[in-house]
């Protein structure tokens, strides 16, 4: 049994044992009392026979009780181990889950973004760090730092090619970051739903809490719009999750310790800019080049007319192995939609959030290009809008490789870093501080602490607990 919970289990188990077997206890205690009295009488009268008889009865009573108690403890321990081994999801109550199980389940669920935060990673075992990093590199592609040109076309409708009239170009520096290789799937989102993500108020912006109650599926259960009974439809486990609002996407990202990519980050991954001179960048229209090729993306011209699995259209991946940036589903980004031609963003609809990449029903190829930006109401839950998550390089601890460069890394560094990642701490220093870690990993207990995005776009904490227990402080 876990040492933290051992005493609790003991008390509970003993009480329950006594209460459930009260009749047996009455008989046993009667025999024990009688034996003790007989022994006492023998001692008073100096009668060795009675003294021996009473002592034997008392010893028998104590031995029986102790044996029963030990057996109960063993049964309880076996029961806990069996549950831990066979329970695939992470829905065990906190008092029945060991810290190791919690960490491994978080890694398995793709919440390594939380585990790899410096103040948490410092308390993990090297094996746990390694597992989290393996998961990170398996599931996310590294986008190197650099500048990216953002072409913002006015929605007043002028031809995009006529850039002097309608399009403004803005150059933005994007530090290195990780981007999910695939859009978030129904299966991944199911984990979030099953973990009670819709009930964890710390994951949602306070002003949106009234709307969270309306984020239900077709049967009224919390979940994406077209799910049923809180579950995704059969056969769609590897499909990108759709029917989620921007806020739901953001809540998932927070739960998994990640964030939504900004517009510049998304364009950086899709257009993969290369500086060809001091002032000029060569950017691609699509991740594979400048021409649309139907077999590389699920758009209207591909003729499928529906969302497909994330494992299809593999030839459309970008250089770092990020798939389906173009087509299949639009992807929410963190950025507000801004029309460069408008002095004030006088949208009657209110603030719109930028979406990128096109979907299976995008009619014009150029509207799925890496530079094209569309938008939608952040509360809308469309059939063709999903999302993927990002993780900033400087927000996580990958060992010594990323400590020196706070502004990210160049393309040349990418390969070397991937091959030289080391555990954060030597083996002999990685004593697991259970209590500290328990406080840090609190998405199972949302009332204690959680991560949130502050107004300046940086990660912040809603509680000081983790910061106080961290040796290195807040990044």
């Amino acid at each position, binding site marked *: 049994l876990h040492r933290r919970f051992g005493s609790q289990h003991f008390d509970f188990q003993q009480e329950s044992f006594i209460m459930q077997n009260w009749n047996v206890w009455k008989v046993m205690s009667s025999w024990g009392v009688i034996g003790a009295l007989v022994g006492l009488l023998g001692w008073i009268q100096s009668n060795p026979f009675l003294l021996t008889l009473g002592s034997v009865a008392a010893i028998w009573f104590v031995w029986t009780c102790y044996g029963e108690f030990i057996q109960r403890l063993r049964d309880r321990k076996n029961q806990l181990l069996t549950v831990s081994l066979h329970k695939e999801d992470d829905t065990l109550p906190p008092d029945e889950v060991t810290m190791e199980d919690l960490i491994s389940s978080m890694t398995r669920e793709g919440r390594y973004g939380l585990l790899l935060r410096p103040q948490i990673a410092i308390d993990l075992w090297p094996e746990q760090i390694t597992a989290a990093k393996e998961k990170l590199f398996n599931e996310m592609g590294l986008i190197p730092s650099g500048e990216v040109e953002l072409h913002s076309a006015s929605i007043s409708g002028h031809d995009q090619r006529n850039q002097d009239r309608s399009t403004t170009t803005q150059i933005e520096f994007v530090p290195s970051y990780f981007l999910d290789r695939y859009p978030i799937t129904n299966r991944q989102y199911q984990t979030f739903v099953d973990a009670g993500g819709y009930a964890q108020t710390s994951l949602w912006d306070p002003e949106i809490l009234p709307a969270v109650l309306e984020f239900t599926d077709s049967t009224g259960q919390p979940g994406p719009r077209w799910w049923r009974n809180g579950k995704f439809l059969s056969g769609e486990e590897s499909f990108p999750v759709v029917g989620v609002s921007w806020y739901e996407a953001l809540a998932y990202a927070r739960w998994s310790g990640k964030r939504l990519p900004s517009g510049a980050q998304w364009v950086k991954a899709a257009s993969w800019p290369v500086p060809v001179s001091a002032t000029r960048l060569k950017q691609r229209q699509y991740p594979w080049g400048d021409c649309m090729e139907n077999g590389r993306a699920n758009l209207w011209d591909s*003729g499928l007319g529906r969302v497909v699995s994330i494992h299809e259209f593999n030839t459309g991946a970008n250089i770092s192995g990020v798939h389906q940036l173009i087509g299949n589903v639009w992807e929410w980004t963190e950025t507000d939609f801004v029309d460069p031609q408008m002095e004030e963003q*006088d949208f*009657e609809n209110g603030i719109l959030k930028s979406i990128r990449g096109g979907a299976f029903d995008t009619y014009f190829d150029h509207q799925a290009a890496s530079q094209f930006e569309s938008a939608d109401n952040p509360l809308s839950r469309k059939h063709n809008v999903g999302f993927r998550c990002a993780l900033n390089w400087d927000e996580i601890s990958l060992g010594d490789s990323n400590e020196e460069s706070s502004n990210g890394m160049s393309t040349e560094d990418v390969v070397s870093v991937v091959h030289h990642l080391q555990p954060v701490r030597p083996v002999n220093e990685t004593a697991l501080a259970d209590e500290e870690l328990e406080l840090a990993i609190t998405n199972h207990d949302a009332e204690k602490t959680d991560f949130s995005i502050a107004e300046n776009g940086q990660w912040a904490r809603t509680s000081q607990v983790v910061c106080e227990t961290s040796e290195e402080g807040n990044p």
Partner: protein
Amino acid sequence: MGIIYQPLESSRYTNSTAQIPCYICETGNTYEAELCHNCFAPMALAHQANAQKVKPDMLGVVGASGVGKTVYLGMLMDMLSRRTMTGQRMHMLARGAFSLTLQQTAIAALSQREFPAKTPNEPERWHWLHSQLSMVSHKKPLELIMPDMSGEALMEEVNRPFTYRGVRSFLSKCSGLLVLVDAAAMTRGSREQDYYSMKLLNYLCELDDDQKHGWPNSPLAIVLTKADECESAFENPAAFVQHHAGGLHQLLHERFRKFDFFAVGVAGACATRYVRGQGYIPVPLRIEPRNIIEPFEWMVKHL
């Protein structure tokens, strides 16, 4: 000295003197006439029908002003012309350059995130489509004529019959009608769509109420446009009409036999933007056609 045959100049006018009936209103026009002087329909329709010895069917796409007739027709034409017979059920081919103008202007505007300009009220400026529709289920292709009429002109004709002779002539000869209704406006509580549609349907019954060959037995597709702004229209169009346009729903059930409800969307999302001097204008943020072909396919099936 040889004989030189010189045709008399007067013989060159024989074609011009023969009256060519307009295909829409059957008014006689000269051979060189570009538009019918009565209804302003292109005379090319008549010339093509005469040359091919095929009588095209006429399909109407009607609805209030701003409901999306031009967008729907342009998108329908473009989608059907992009489809290939190998994988799809229908393929449309324009007959004559004039038939492509509507498709060209509508698609050019949409690709630039604009809605096409409003169709003018003057009939001589309307776009007419004459196309050949090939279907997997039919051996012979179908010839179709579909005009893009102004919603205001339609309403004017409904309110004051014989104002627009072309409209009246066309609707008299029409084989079926796609009645476009603005679902987004209905969601906002507007009853205008309900009244407009009921007026139009009553006008049709006045034109020809023969129970066997008249409008009561002709196919009517009630098409909810801009349904991308109200997802419930996609889920159950009939229930949507019953809920938001009870009068139209009742009228259809009492007077017509062949009708069905559809929901369509062209823009994936729209923003309403304030422009100085123009007020609030809708802007399509992206183009994602949904269910565009289904009502047309149903209509063709019931012709």
